[in-house]
């Protein structure tokens, strides 16, 4: 595994927007661009590594303090201008290592920075903006909660280089006192533990698993196909509610997340009981 995460994210940001520089005032680790998609325009965002970044623990593709507030700023600035018009789609290209693990970050309240980014994405969704997440590489833990997990629709590449998880493999093995091999084996039997994106798809949280050839080097034909999938997801999101209820409605969710569905139904019936 490369020391840096986000290289693939940058490649896809460039392929989809034709741009690869940060907006004025932003850190080099956050790329934002407005570009056409389908019949309209969308705002694309991506976190990329910056070996010269100000914060040492956020140089390898992690979401740190600066990244979180830059994302929050760039997402929020589309909400007000679109208040009385068609709500621009927001597309999070996700290839994030994790949140930044540093003392500076904790001291300056990275929990609030991360919340501010998630707040921006969630508030834009509630305001009617289709939020589409495209996982092209890693989507790990607090990094994903901050950048991508508030989306109406989540698409991911069907590829061994894609990993969506609560904790990276080495740390999870250490903490659960298992070897990486036994952790991988366990994931085959217990879907939520798996590091394989095809098992993640069984949880019913994905809108679409996209098969792409050579995802490290987006070719024109592949890029065109990804664009069509994104445009379709935007249209699908516009037709649906602004909440995340769709994550429990897919056939996969009805199978794997039965306990969630049952818990919600029982709680609702008891909530409404007259006493």
């Amino acid at each position, binding site marked *: 595994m490369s020391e840096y995460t986000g290289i693939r994210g940058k490649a896809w940001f460039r392929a989809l927007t034709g741009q690869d520089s940060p907006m004025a005032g932003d850190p080099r680790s956050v790329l934002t661009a407005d570009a056409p998609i389908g019949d309209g325009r969308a705002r694309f965002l991506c976190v990329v590594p910056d070996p010269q970044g100000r914060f040492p*623990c956020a140089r390898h593709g992690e979401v740190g303090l600066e990244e979180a507030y830059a994302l929050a700023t760039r997402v929020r600035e589309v909400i007000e201008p679109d208040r009385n018009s068609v709500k621009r789609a927001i597309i999070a290209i996700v290839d994030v290592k994790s949140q930044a*693990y540093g003392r500076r970050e904790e*001291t*300056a309240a990275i929990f*609030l920075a991360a919340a501010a980014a998630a707040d921006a994405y969630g508030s834009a969704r509630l305001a009617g903006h289709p939020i589409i997440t495209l996982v092209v590489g890693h989507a790990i833990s607090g990094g994903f*909660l901050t950048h991508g997990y508030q989306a109406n629709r989540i698409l991911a590449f069907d590829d061994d280089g894609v990993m969506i998880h609560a904790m990276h493999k080495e740390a999870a093995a250490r903490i659960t006192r298992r070897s990486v091999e036994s952790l991988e084996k*366990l994931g085959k039997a217990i879907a939520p533990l798996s590091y394989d994106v095809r098992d993640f798809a069984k949880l019913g949280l994905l809108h679409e698993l996209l098969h792409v050839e050579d995802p490290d080097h987006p070719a024109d034909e592949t890029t065109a196909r990804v664009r069509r999938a994104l445009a379709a997801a935007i249209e699908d999101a516009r037709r649906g509610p602004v909440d995340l209820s769709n994550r429990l409605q897919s056939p996969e969710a009805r199978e794997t997340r039965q306990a969630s569905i049952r*818990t919600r139904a029982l709680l609702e019936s008891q909530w409404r009981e007259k006493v």
Partner: protein
Amino acid sequence: MSAVRDDLAFVNRQSFIELHARERAIALFDSGTARELLGPFDRVESPWLPLQGVTPQADDGCVVMKGKISGRAAVVVALEGAFQGGSLGEVSGAKLTAALDLARADGEKGKPTAAVMLLETGGVRLQEANLGLAAIAEIMAAILSLRRYAPVISVVAGTVGCFGGMSLAAGLSSYIVMTREARLGLNGPEVIEQESGIEEFDSSDRRLIWAINGGEQRYAMGLADALVDDDTGQVGKTIRQLIEKGVPREHRSARVAFYRERIQSLDATRQLDPNELRASWRTGDATEPGK
């Protein structure tokens, strides 16, 4: 107040931290109004723990109660730090999300229902990994949706603290209440030491941990709205006051320009001194009540 009466108050006070989740939840309601939903007798348990040889708990470590606080509709969700470190699994996560969603639905129908989350948690339950993380994303979405209608209050009281993804849930809340014993942060000290080395964070340095994550520091930096003693009476009174205040005019997590500017002005070439930061962040961050 005289010293004698202070002593008396100290002797008579009831520790909030020592209470179990169920007792903590019930203590916050107007007397006789609390009703538990999906209690232990419903036996809605984690389906994933037994597969890994772990004994599940009949309430999955999450207590939901509905009733009145200060005469207003409210729901309290208490995480039990003594079960799996208060971690969020599929069921406990679904209970918390559903409680927030139902409170929001009542709010939409003109019956604002405040939510109080008692957070004693390390975040995602590792045995349920991706479903725990998914649950936290949904909890965060539910908080954002509810807080337009009624305040969402996070209380971090006990020694487990509030870490991991649930620190983002706290960050999205209308108000945060802490004790001096509590800690709040995204990454716990052990995790930072493990990931970035002991020179980045020495997790055996208790003084450093509380200087950064402790309730007193978070309150002094304007990141928590109330600092309370470990006293059930005082916690209850504070929550009643915050519910009466209602929805803040602007939530802390929406004050992006304000906090971004603060991060930009930091000297990141060295570790930050918690005391210096406390002095420079102290002013100008009172969360104003609405209206």
